[in-house]
């Protein structure tokens, strides 16, 4: 199975509000609230680190969850955020613009 790379879409608006991350999609002005786990993934989405590594190093370490379950959940989350234009997803590293 090939690695999945994720990058934050710079077209969104985002801000931490307490322990939640508020994100507004540029595409349709839809507002999302990400919990602490999802926020961790979004913030680590640098386009260079594979999702599995983000989950292992950031999510499992911080939230003490089972790696396999966490990765499945993360893939589902990433798919959803990608559909709303919040994350870019690719099987190769993603070049970040200026």
């Amino acid at each position, binding site marked *: 199975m090939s690695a999945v790379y994720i990058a934050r879409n710079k077209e*969104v*608006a985002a*801000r931490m*509000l307490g322990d*939640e991350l508020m994100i*507004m999609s*540029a595409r349709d002005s*839809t*507002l999302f609230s990400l919990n602490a786990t999802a926020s961790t993934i979004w913030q680590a989405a640098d386009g260079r680190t594979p999702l599995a590594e983000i989950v292992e190093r950031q999510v499992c370490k911080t939230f003490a969850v089972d790696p396999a379950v966490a990765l499945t959940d993360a893939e589902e989350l990433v798919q959803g955020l990608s559909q709303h234009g919040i994350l870019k997803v690719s099987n190769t590293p993603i070049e970040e613009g200026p």
Partner: protein
Amino acid sequence: MIAMVREMSNTALRLGIPLGVQLDLTYRCNERCVHCYLDHDDHGEMSTAEIKDLLDQMAEAGVFFLTISGGEIMMRRDFFEILAHARRLMFCVKLKTNAVMIHEEEADRIRELVVESVQISVYSHRAEVHDAITKLPGSLKKSLAGAKLLAERGVKVMFANVLMRENFGDYQGVQALAAEAGAEYTVDPTITPMMDGDRSILNLNIERAELEQVFRDASLLGMSTEEFCAPPAGPMDEVDAMETLPCSAGHTACYISPYGDVYPCVQFPLPTGNVRTTKFIDIWKHSPQMKEVRSITMADLPVCSTCSHGGGSCSRCPGLAYMEGNMRGPSSQDCEKSYARTGVETAGMKLRQHAHSAVGLVQIQCSTQPSGMHQAALA
């Protein structure tokens, strides 16, 4: 979406976060609108570096919704540098402009920087009316051209239509223009006093009968006329009144002038501090004036807490009340609106009628009393 924004506001309120800020970059403007509440001289605007630093501070403080306004924002040559910085900080940005200076290049740049929306002032579908209000010949044509360029690029555009005597009959024409341009439409029937307290422009406000007409036009309300104009529900329950805040000003929102002055709201010119001398977050958290605004609940409003409109048919603005002399008092303009909605007088209106008749009595007494007693009787 609305429910989620409300939830965000509740969280921000609980955590003491300034969720929304309006930042005016300049009071300079290429138009001279007859109803404008600003003077258009530059009294020492913040520099590019000062504004960027302020934006950094605001992002750190948790500001999410950023409205960039003026004056005319494009009068600042560094406008796009400021906007780009704001977007790098991931604010949800709304722009307010007259769009007169938006050409292909500016529209492309605004599209690239991805703002939430651009609000454009449009006063009439007739150039002679719009241009007479802005005092800039050709301004309607230019504003509409700017709006079209933005809409063509997929930028969300909203036409803001302030109603006054000069253009009251034209709002349906502006609505049609907005529909044609693919823009949303919002109407504001209130002319506000100038920020320096000058109330002379209030004579531009539409008449009561016209206000009643606006409040019965379902196309403007976003709800049924019956619901919007329903009789007042009675004063707010005492317990609710102790927990209900007059509005978001100073609680989850504030306004910053081009000179760095921080106010609870653009319509609430109570000085609370200046970011040139004090960190934004310190003004927000520790300013005695902000704390005073925050301490006020509906129960603390001596007149409005007794008013039958307190249960929902009043949109009292504490800033307008402040500009009338008492931030805990009623706002006569909002009393007028409540009356226009329901046909039922507000407690503020009754109080004013009583005060007028009392003044009349005092004036009669005054002929036989020294002025000191006259003043005491008025108080």
